[in-house]
């Protein structure tokens, strides 16, 4: 039996559709893409055909309007099978969020329907070599001249970089104004002066492309500005508030996949004349894994529902909690899954090896676990301070 999270009929359809695509289309190719480090275009096409890119996008822009929960359910279900190929979809959501949050009607109509249909995938460009956890340290600039902005600088570690067609990019428009001097722009692959640098080789999520983006006198019309000048970091924060549950879902999916593998293996593997699942040492590991995963799921779904309800002004704390907990659980669970497999768990032929490598990124990107704790603590203290006034 599974816990009942009272998913609506449509949410159950989302889960079922994602499961079919994951097991029938993605599973046979997951080792191939991990090994070759190629961008999984043929699977992306399957996601598109099944309408999986559309769940969180509002209906007026070609989506299903199922909010963060819609995104979370797709990502979790796909990542139970593969946490790397699925990232093409999850990172597209992150790239699309600034448009959803700050775009005007014209910008939304121009970009979102193609993203909902899966015709175009997106990417989010904030991180730079010298600006990771501290985004205010970015060096990329956008200088306004008449109706145009000229971008110069470079972004690094950009998921879907080079393969995406639509990019939301953060650059300083008033370098002297610190956090309030940053703005967000939409860039399109092929914009003059916009090119791609080196593709990174990674420990995990190897089916996902991670590239450098280079802006060399890249001139774009002012209609590409999202929101107003200076709102960049606010837009980025709002995007993270909605996207971190997506990372949490990725982590939760990977953890669940690893638990499934570990239980199956423990029931089949015979040592000392009995299945290793009969040993209490193994049982306790499995029990902890299952309990933590269920707790993570409950926290994630509650956070996603809270964000979708629109009742809270800010949800940074809740989305950070979900991401922190799910990603830490994913790391712990995948390490234990490998442990249960013993030596076999270290061999590439068994999928837990890959799951452990893929899980690690979830504690790092879109803010490390430590940054999530800062976020949680800051908001927690603020809440108490405002209550005691």
């Amino acid at each position, binding site marked *: 039996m599974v816990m009942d999270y009272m998913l609506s009929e*449509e949410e159950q*359809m989302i889960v079922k*559709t994602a499961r*079919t695509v994951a097991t*029938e289309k993605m599973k046979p190719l997951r080792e191939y893409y991990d090994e070759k480090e190629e961008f999984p275009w043929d699977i992306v096409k399957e996601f598109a*055909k*099944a309408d*999986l890119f559309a769940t969180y996008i509002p209906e007026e822009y070609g989506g299903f309007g199922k909010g963060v929960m819609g995104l979370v359910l797709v990502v979790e279900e796909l990542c139970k099978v593969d946490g790397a190929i699925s990232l093409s979809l999850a990172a597209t959501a992150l790239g699309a969020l600034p448009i959803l949050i700050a775009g005007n009607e014209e910008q939304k109509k121009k970009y979102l329907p193609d993203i909902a249909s899966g015709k175009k995938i997106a990417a989010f460009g904030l991180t730079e070599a010298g600006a990771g956890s501290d985004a205010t340290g970015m060096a990329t600039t956008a200088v306004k001249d008449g109706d145009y902005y000229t971008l110069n600088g470079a972004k690094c570690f950009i998921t879907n970089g080079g393969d995406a067609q639509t990019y939301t990019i953060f650059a300083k428009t008033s370098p002297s104004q610190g956090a309030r001097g940053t703005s967000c722009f939409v860039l399109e692959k092929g914009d003059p002066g916009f090119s791609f640098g080196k593709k990174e080789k990674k420990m995990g999520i190897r089916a996902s492309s991670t590239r450098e983006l280079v802006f060399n006198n890249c001139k774009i019309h002012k209609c590409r500005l999202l929101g107003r000048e200076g709102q960049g970091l606010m837009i980025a924060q709002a995007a993270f508030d909605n996207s971190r549950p997506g990372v949490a879902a990725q982590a939760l999916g990977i953890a669940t996949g690893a638990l499934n593998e570990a239980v199956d293996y423990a029931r089949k593997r015979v040592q000392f004349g009995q299945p290793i699942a009969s040993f209490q040492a193994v049982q306790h590991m499995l029990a902890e894994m299952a309990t933590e995963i269920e707790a993570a799921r409950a926290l994630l779904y509650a956070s996603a529902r809270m964000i979708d309800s629109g009742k809270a002004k800010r949800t940074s704390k809740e989305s950070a909690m979900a991401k922190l907990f799910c990603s830490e659980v994913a790391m712990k669970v995948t390490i234990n899954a490998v442990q249960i497999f013993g030596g076999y768990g270290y061999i590439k032929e068994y999928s837990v090896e890959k799951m452990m490598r893929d899980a690690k990124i979830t504690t790092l990107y879109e803010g490390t676990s430590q940054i999530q704790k800062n976020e949680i603590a800051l908001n927690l203290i603020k809440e108490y301070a405002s209550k005691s006034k």
Partner: protein
Amino acid sequence: MNIIVCIKQVPSLTNVQIDLETGRLKRDGVEPMINPFDEYAIEEGVRIKEKVGGKVVVITMGPPQAESALREAISRGADEAFLISDRAFGGADTLATSYTLSLAIRFIGDYDIIICGKQALDGDTAQVGPGIAEMLNIPHVACVKKIELVDDKSIRVERVMEDGYNLIESPIPTLLTVAKEINIPRMPSLRGKMFSKKAFIKILDAVTIGADTKKTGLNGSPTRVIKTFTPPPTKRNCGEKISGAAKEVAIALVERLSKLGII
């Protein structure tokens, strides 16, 4: 181009069990599914529509639960669905089924191509498709593996034969039954599933289609199942296994086959 696809809901293949006492399929509690051959029929109908325009209407005769099969067909790209359902249709054999479906098709009217799966997984008769065509007095081609050409007057198809295929041209309207070689059915998309949930399924009963209830259901079925049984396993003579190096095996095999006069 208006296409009517006839489908049947059957017990899910992987779960079917036979009641050893009665010799019948145990249908209780078995999740139903669309007859697999009918999935090819739906897909082919949708492909024709996507190529030349028109609409795909899917129909099934069955109890009220068969509505879920129609909704699935809509999620796979069909536009409209009719459930042909009446107590008087129950217990129909292939003759009564063909009669009822042909009347429903007449009632719906305005069709160019009717597509059926070549046979159903449970009954396995392959008679209903051709039966409908006879009752509608239109041509039919059974066991089609490819549609080569379709225009508003005729259709050219490849029919599977044991040793190749026939290229057949038929005027329109016509009925085709399709084999599994014809396509790979798409997976239902999320949009399709959500749309199908809201789709209105029209129900056609005996009065609506003007059926003579003496010719429908059990009344209209001359077929009587007297007894069904599972034959006990028969003892077969063992074959001979020729083993050794590939070359020796080949020589020995050729010798044996020539001795038997096979080659």
